[in-house]
Structure formats: structure tokens, C-alpha cells
């Protein structure tokens, strides 16, 4: 899959409380979650996401709560992928489970600037910064995790593997 989108850039330690505050966890309706996504961090996010659909950030993206509403709200906002220097463990797992591409590349996260246009080739594992003129390799994931992604998320993966046994 190829993702060709512009970048919204955030900083270090973007936590789940700013991605989706607990006061909105009374719903798992995607539109409603999306309408409050990042509202405590960036009041312009709702506007920006209309034309910029890749998030690039620093270390420890998604730290904090286990709430799956965090990647759900980002995905429902229209974001196609997140590139970060590193991800918090639970967020990373949640994103894989719901089919939101999360890419670890400290070099890309350092280099890419807010507003840059990217072309991400998920199959080949390449991030191209068209604006900045550089290409970055994404390290491959362990086979088990890649199988979950290839199945279309953890629900489908589980359903497929239960039928086999």
C-alpha cells in the first residue's frame, strides 16, 4: 500500500490524555472520538487533518493509558500513518490491532518537517520525503506481528486462527 500525504508534526511524549481525554471515553463511536482528537494539544488539528494525514512525532508517542480509543480517534480523524522515534508499548500494540500503520524511524522523525509531503510504501518499507528529498528504510516487524497486520487486524487474525484449531 502506498500512502501519499502531507505531515502534521508534533513533539516528544505525546500522551493518550492529549490524544483523547478520558472525559470522552463514554463512547466508542468513531465520529465522536475523532471530533475530540488532540483537542487539548492542538486546537487546529481538526482543520489541519483535512489536508495533512500523516503524523510525525518524537519519542514515546502514545504513552500513558491503555485506551484503544487513542489510536481509534486518530484513525477515525483520517490519519493514514504515524511515524515516530519510538512508540509507547500499549499504543503500538493497539494501533497494530486496529490496522493503523505505526512506523518507527528516528532518522525520518528527525528529518521530516511540518507540512512536508511524504510517500510511504508500506510493502517495501520505505518513507520518501518528497519535499525534503530523502528516503528512509522502515525496519521490518517480527513475523508474528506482520501476520496480524496482513490479516487486517487482531480480530480477523484471531477469528482465522480459531477456525483452524
Amino acid at each position, binding site marked *: 500500500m502506498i500512502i501519499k500525504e502531507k505531515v502534521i508534526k508534533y513533539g516528544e*511524549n505525546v*500522551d*493518550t*490524555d*492529549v490524544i483523547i*481525554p*478520558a*472525559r470522552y*471515553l*463514554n*463512547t*466508542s463511536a468513531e465520529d465522536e472520538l475523532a471530533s475530540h482528537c488532540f483537542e*487539548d*494539544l492542538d486546537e487546529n488539528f481538526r482543520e489541519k487533518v483535512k489536508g495533512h494525514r500523516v503524523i510525525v512525532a518524537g*519519542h*514515546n508517542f502514545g*504513552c*500513558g*493509558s*491503555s*485506551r*484503544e*480509543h487513542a*489510536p481509534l480517534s486518530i484513525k477515525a480523524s483520517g490519519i493514514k500513518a504515524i511515524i515516530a522515534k*519510538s512508540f*509507547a*508499548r*500499549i499504543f503500538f*500494540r*493497539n494501533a497494530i*490491532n*486496529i490496522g493503523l500503520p505505526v512506523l518507527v524511524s528516528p532518522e525520518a522523525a528527525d528529518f521530516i518537517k511540518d507540512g512536508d509531503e511524504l510517500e510511504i510504501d508500506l510493502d517495501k518499507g520505505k518513507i520518501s520525503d518528497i519535499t525534503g528529498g530523502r528516503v528512509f528504510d522502515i525496519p521490518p516487524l*517480527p513475523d*508474528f*506481528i506482520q501476520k496480524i497486520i496482513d490479516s487486517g*487486524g*487482531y*480480530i480477523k487474525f*484471531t*477469528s482465522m486462527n*480459531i477456525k483452524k484449531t
Partner: protein
Amino acid sequence: MGKTISEKIISKHSGRDLKAGDIAVVDVDVVMSQDGTGPLAVSQIKKMGFSRLKNPGKAIFFIDHASPSPRRELSNAHSVLRSFASDTGAVLSDIGMGVCHQILVEDFSCPGDIVIGGDSHTCTSGALGAFATGMGSTDIAVGYALSKTWLMVPHTIRVNLIGKLNTGVFAKDIIIYLIGKITSDGATYRALEFAGPVSENMDMDGRFTIANMAVEAGAKTGLFNSDEVTKAYLESQGRGNCFREISADPGAAYEKIIDMDCSVVEPMVSQPHTVDNAIPVRELEKIRVDQVFIGTCTNGRISDLRIASEILKGKKVADGTRLIIVPASRKIYLEALKSGIIETLVESGAAVQNPGCGPCVGVHQGILADGEVCLSTQNRNFKGRMGNPEAFIYLSSTATAAWSSVRGYIADPREVLK
């Protein structure tokens, strides 16, 4: 070669001989979620077409984060959990019972277990020697249905707590100090294993506080060896029969070993808006507090309520400061009632609320106003955490919080604890 605690427990639950970095499907002993993450888990279980849970007696739904419900939408979410638990025979821990992580250690988690929970602070049960970790609702849904999950065996950072704890210094100060040093992603994907004389001499309440905050350094879990202290705690909860001895092998391979001298640790606070923004109280300028909150899965236990009552006895909460106290569980609340602790706290001017998460997660029972400062014994001080992104949250031990409520500003508890 010797094994870490994580390698031992995960190997045993997968039937394979595993080392750090291996991925395995494992049997899970305890699965839980709470009222924030549970409804989504229920809908995922339904989406997969499961109508029965593999082990309903160890599948628990907690209503603790918004408890009792402050809004109709949350009331409806609670209804979903009550009906699903009733339909499947899962355990429901309803309002007034307390915070999920405290009920787990009182009634469910055992040394050597694998515990997964739809809440990041599930790592608290690691203090009992259980491999306990937080996951999202979809992972928890599969766990509920099949009592299985997949895990990557984490590399382990061993933290030897050496030296001694000085007067006025508590487990909370140790963990805030440690996170200040290693930063809030210093242990991401790793297990933290705590050992050394200070941890061996620490009571279970202190170990729970430290294990609880392992995730604030990014860790998958925070583990202690199980020992006589663990055994005595489980016996006090009527669960002595679930005691097992779990410890790391002498030759276990660690990614890193940190020797932390606890003798140099002073009363600490985490400043807004990250837990690793740590500083000794002594070095802080005079910061007035609007609200002090004592409670949560980090510091709402009987030893917390006791030290608070010792500090507050015969004193009053300062004018202009509000003190909210929330016992972590019904058992703790009852013990504090019977021993007169609650009476002392109420006389001092505290607002004592029902067991649960209280205002920690910002949905009820003490949401901060714009510009207000709160000193809390909870584990997390992210922007907006307590319901208002315009407020400022500091974290501390219970002693620091209690004494600060008397002074009206963040104050060093060594002024009163000699």
C-alpha cells in the same frame, strides 16, 4: 542459563523454553477491564461472535473510573458491562468496591500468574510476582474469550534498591526519583525487576506503589520476587493458598542493572506535565495548592490513610485548600473506619469519598478549575489528566500531600515527621 522472572513466568504459560525477545502465545490466568475500556472490549467480543468466556470466574469487569456515574452516557456504558457480566457469568466489581488494581491484588492475582488488563496500571500486580501488563480493548476481548494472548518476552532492567529509606521518604519518592533519572520512556518494552535490601524490607503497600508506576517509565511490567512479605499479605486477604515462590535465577541475563542508593532520596514531586519532571520538594519554590488528592491505585491503601491521619491529627486543612481522600478499596475503607482513621481525616476537613478512582482520571469527584494547582498521590500528571488542560498537577507521596494540605503549599513532610 538462569532466567529472569518474566522469562520464567512466560515460559511456563507457553509450554516452551523462552528467552527475552521471543514471541509466544500464552495462557492467561486473570483478564480484566474497567468502565473506560470494558464497553469496547464487549463490542469486540461480540464482533468475533463469542457468547461464552473461557474462564468467567477470572474474567472481571470493574466499574471504578466513573463510579458512581456522573453522566447518563457513562451510566449507559455501565449498563453494558452489568448485562454482559450477568449474561456470561463474568465477575462484576461494581461501584463502591474500589480501584481495579487494588481488588486484583486483594482477591485475584497470584504469584506466577499472567494477568492482562484493559488499563495501563495493571502492572501493579507485578508486586506479587505476577507477570501483569496493560493492553487495549481488542487484546483484552480476545483474552476474555479464549484466556490466551500473545506476548513478546521483554528484556529486563534490574533495579537494586540499596541503602536505606530516610525518615519522611516513601516508596513513592523512590519511584518518582527513579523515573526522573531514567525518564518516562527509559524502560519502554522492558520489564523492571526490583530487588535489593530496600525492596526486601518493604511492605506490600510500598511494593504496589512502585510496581504501579513501572508503566510511567514505559515498562511492560514491574516485578518483585515473592517472599515471606508476599505470603503474609496473601494470608491476610484469605488467599494464603495461592502463594508460590517466584524469583529470578542468580545467573539471569539483564539488559541493564541499576544500583540505586535509596539513602540519597529525599521527598520528591513530579512537576507538570510529565512524571519524569522530578525534583526534591526541598528545591521547589513555594507553590500554593488549591486541591490535594490522596488516593488511587498508587497510594490509596491503608498505610497511606494511616500516615495521612497521623499527620493531620489535631490539625486543619489550610484555608483556600481542598483535601479529597478516596480509599482504594472497600476493605481498606472499612479498616480505616474501624480504626478511627476516617474520623481523624474528616475532622481535619477532608472530603472523604467512596472507594474508586476518584478524580484521578478527570471524569468526576474533583475536576480542577482553570489555572488551579493540584498535588496528588496518583501516578500520572499529564496535561488534562484531571479533567482540565488549563490546570497543573504535581505528584507526591501521601505524607507530602497530607502535610501540604495543612500548609496550603507544597511542603516537605520532614517538617512534621521527625
